[in-house]
């Protein structure tokens, strides 16, 4: 029952990130870039397994040249 409240979000380590911008190419629905090329990650949770948003988040994680991205499980605040 507890698992219902858990959702996934994409997170970035701001120190590792060097603004390559690959994440915005690979996951445009989740990541937008600011005027300096650094990612702004949307705070809406990713969808369930096999959803498009989770799939593109995984691509962004794998495609990050600095390995600064990860997908994190969070308790959803109700």
């Amino acid at each position: 029952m507890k698992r219902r409240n858990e959702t996934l979000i994409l997170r970035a380590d701001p120190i590792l990130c060097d603004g390559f911008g690959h994440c915005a190419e690979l996951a445009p629905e989740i990541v937008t870039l600011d005027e300096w090329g650094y990612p702004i990650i949307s705070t809406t949770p990713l969808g369930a397994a096999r959803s498009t948003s989770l799939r593109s988040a995984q691509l962004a994680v794998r495609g990050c040249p600095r390995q600064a991205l990860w997908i994190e499980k969070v308790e959803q605040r109700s």
Partner: protein
Amino acid sequence: MSIATHTLPRVLTGAGPRPLTLQQHEEFFGPARMRRDLLDELGRSGLTGRGGAAFPTAVKAALLRDQHARKKFVVVNAMEGEPAAHKDYTLASVNPHLVLDGALALAGAIGASHVAICVAREKTVMINHFERAVHERERRGSLGVTVEIHTPPGRYIAGEESALVHWLDDNETLPQFRPERPSILSIGRAPVLVDNTETHAHVGLILRYGADWFRSIGTTASPGSTLVSVSGAVARPVVLEIALGTPIREILAAAGADTAPRALLLGGYGGTFVDGSAVSTPYANELLRPLGASVGAGVIVVLPQQSCGITETFNIARWMANESARQCGPCAFGLPALAESLGHLAVGGRDAKDALALIRERSGVINGRGACRHPDGVVRLVQSALSVFADDAERHAAGHPCAHAGHSRFASVPRLELEHELVWE
């Protein structure tokens, strides 16, 4: 004469031309006794961290007590990177022994083997005071723990707790990214308790007189006294010890400041501007929260009617942008860009209208995207300036800057360091 009988000053008791010696200190306060229930007593006293975040000291200490490690550290954060704050300096030049009492008591309570006192290496007087105090203690007998004085470079960001611990661990004053909160900082594998100098001094008093004595002044939600550094439109910048909940007007009057100011900067250079009408508000976190402000590090900068808030904000933001550790993109590029737009707005030239729009856009984008809270502080400052000085901003943007634009200098800002002068280790 016993301190328990009078109310204020507390931590500044015995202020004189020289810091108290160990003997004088014990005449004033009596010998420090170790108490087993220190953390419970701290919990009941409601003491919160005086470095800015106002986190309950007992909760943080209990978190560290529950860590199982062979070695633990207690860090006294006397870096005081805020240019407008002088409370740690004042405390060190009045009574460094009180700070040591607090640090040693906390070390005993959490089972720490090391106490590290961190003072910016530029502040040689303060280093002297602490060295003398530690030496006096060591001459009397063993302290039971290793007490060391460390001197990191005195940059604004060096006082941020994760940057400070990073320096102790690896000689770099760069903040660390801590994704989960609350996080426990560590030197190697040894967990670290970081508290502000003033917090340690309050612990040194609660140790002796107890929680009820501590709560006898202040408000219910924020009990006790605090040190405030008043600067700006004052005859002379001062550090005062006040009971929390004292109306700001009384603080200003006691400091000899302008009691009908245009605006006040509260908290620090990552703090908030409030309108001059806020002088009737009591100085306590829970009562300042509706104004979006907080006590922060106890900084009050008074801006008189003859000042330009936009210019002041620009000066502070430009300096804060330069103090960035340049680790995270939004801070390294965003803050200078924000400061640049503020500069255009302050001058009120042909770029001013676009600059105002850009400031609004950029300050909305940067918040919460750095490893530490440095960019968030600057954004908070800029956004509060835009709401408090909204009319001024509009007039600047329309090309009619106020009479004091460009040369209003009430908030003291150090010289900007050049890129090649930046020292991180």
